């Protein structure tokens, strides 16, 4: 096996991007980063790792969703996530505000999903994994991945619709 220095150095940026995108908070991202590699130590102890990037990205997603759940259990006063303070000159301020709110709503809704659904959703919709790759990593059938994703989307759509208070004209 490669040394931990090699593994962390080589795959660190991938893990960092994965966790930061979900938690959008520097300190939380750093903690998730470390937890991901500690979980990888445990995984490597159980069985030889065939695909480090896949394992690490899956673990990173799970840790980040866990962190979002912890935030729900230990709510802090509302604050702007750090990315909302980053350079948004590429888009209009209105669009940037809408995007930031939508991203917030999605991450808030994610914590209510069962763990497997949240993981499948993030890996497919945010990280661009194929059904087959997810199936291999999570030890599911390809069909089961599709079912998990369908359920996740359905619940997320309902929660986001409720959160955005979509009101329709009376007919």
């Amino acid at each position, binding site marked *: 096996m490669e040394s931990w220095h090699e593994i*962390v150095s080589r795959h660190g940026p991938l893990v*960092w991007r994965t966790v930061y995108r979900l938690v959008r908070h520097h300190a939380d991202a*750093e903690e998730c980063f470390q937890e991901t590699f500690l979980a990888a130590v445990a995984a490597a*102890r159980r069985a030889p790792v065939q695909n480090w990037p896949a394992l690490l990205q899956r673990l990173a997603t799970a840790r980040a969703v866990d962190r979002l759940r912890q935030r729900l*259990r230990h709510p802090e006063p509302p604050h702007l996530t750090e990315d909302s303070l980053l350079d948004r000159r590429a888009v209009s301020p209105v669009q940037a505000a809408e995007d930031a709110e939508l991203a917030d709503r999605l991450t808030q809704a994610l914590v209510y999903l069962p763990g497997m659904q949240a993981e499948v959703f993030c890996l497919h919709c945010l990280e661009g994994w194929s059904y087959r790759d997810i199936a291999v990593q999570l030890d599911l059938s390809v069909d089961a991945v599709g079912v998990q994703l369908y359920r996740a989307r359905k619940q997320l759509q309902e929660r986001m619709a409720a959160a955005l208070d*979509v009101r329709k004209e009376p007919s």
Partner: protein
Amino acid sequence: MTEPHLPEDPLARAEAALRAVPVPPGPTDALIAQTVAAAEAATPAPPLVFMRRRRTTMHAFVQLAAALLVMAGGFFYFGGNGPGSPALAFAEIAEKLRAAQTLAYRMQMELPGAAKPVTVRFLFKDPGHVRAEAAPGTITIMDQAQHKTVILDSTNKTALLIDEKKAGQPATPEDAVVQMVERLRKLGNTKGESLGKKQIGNIEAQGFRMKDRDMVFQVWADPATRLPVQIESSLRLQNKEVTVRLTDFELDPRLEDTLFQVAVPAGYQVRKTEFPGARPEEEVVRLLRFYAAGSGGTFPARLDDWAALDQQFKNKKWTGTTDPELIAWVQTIIRLVQFTQKTKYGYKTEGVKLGDANKIVFWYKPADAAQYRVVYGDLRVGDVDAEQLPK
């Protein structure tokens, strides 16, 4: 009325927004260095020399024994028996525990004779899956439904598979690990007495005290989250008061199913063992025979003198924490700890030596039995009437 300006598919836009979140450069060199150090520290090093290995193994024995003792439900009796009128916050804590599908906490216990406190991380997942991680590198995974356990020794790369069904010793409700979780969840049924507030880390925790049978528990909870922060109790072990502390509670953490697989990792040498069902007197005979063999024929002064027994173990050489004989002894000790804590028994060895056929050294009355079951100095087992017992 006008339609608000909203996207047709908020989820699709949210996904795109989240994908487009700007990510600051990272990880920093400092974070990489810290992570590498943590990963290396968490990776068990191979044994270097025999002495080093032996020390590790002995320490692991204490850790393993503690883990199994707690897993066997020998220490904690959280369940309440009568109707209670607990404080509201306390009931809320119990409700949260009841609702949790997964649970994690850390147990710390200062065992007499151990150089350092024993720390074991416990993970629970419904239904009946338990994982105990005891440093250094000993992991015990139990599947209550299947009555199967695997103990992994990552130092020696060995795994011990225990099939309780095959051994003809299915877990009883009293022994079941799940009972411990259930008892934790039934805290709300136990009468609680307010202990006021105490600073634990950054939290000004609210305390409750309750007594169940002969044990006293202190539960400290975060008033903001209504989650337990620390649960403390104590027990008599080796004639000393031992504090057991549960901390780092996580309710409903994400715990992957793979953590609870009762399976042997690739590259591990597999060992198997069966534990014959043993009655208390059989365990006592086993313990006394072993002790007398190393002491010149004398018996320990007390049946629960685990320190004296530990002295005898110093000459034993185990082949790692999955050594079947080691596990068998841990099982014996667990059963005897449970027996001595729950059952009224007699034990008198003053002036008795191995081979004294007419002197009774141990006695108790089995449930529904008319006579007392006894063990003599020559380690025979018999049944006698009450008037024949030692005074």
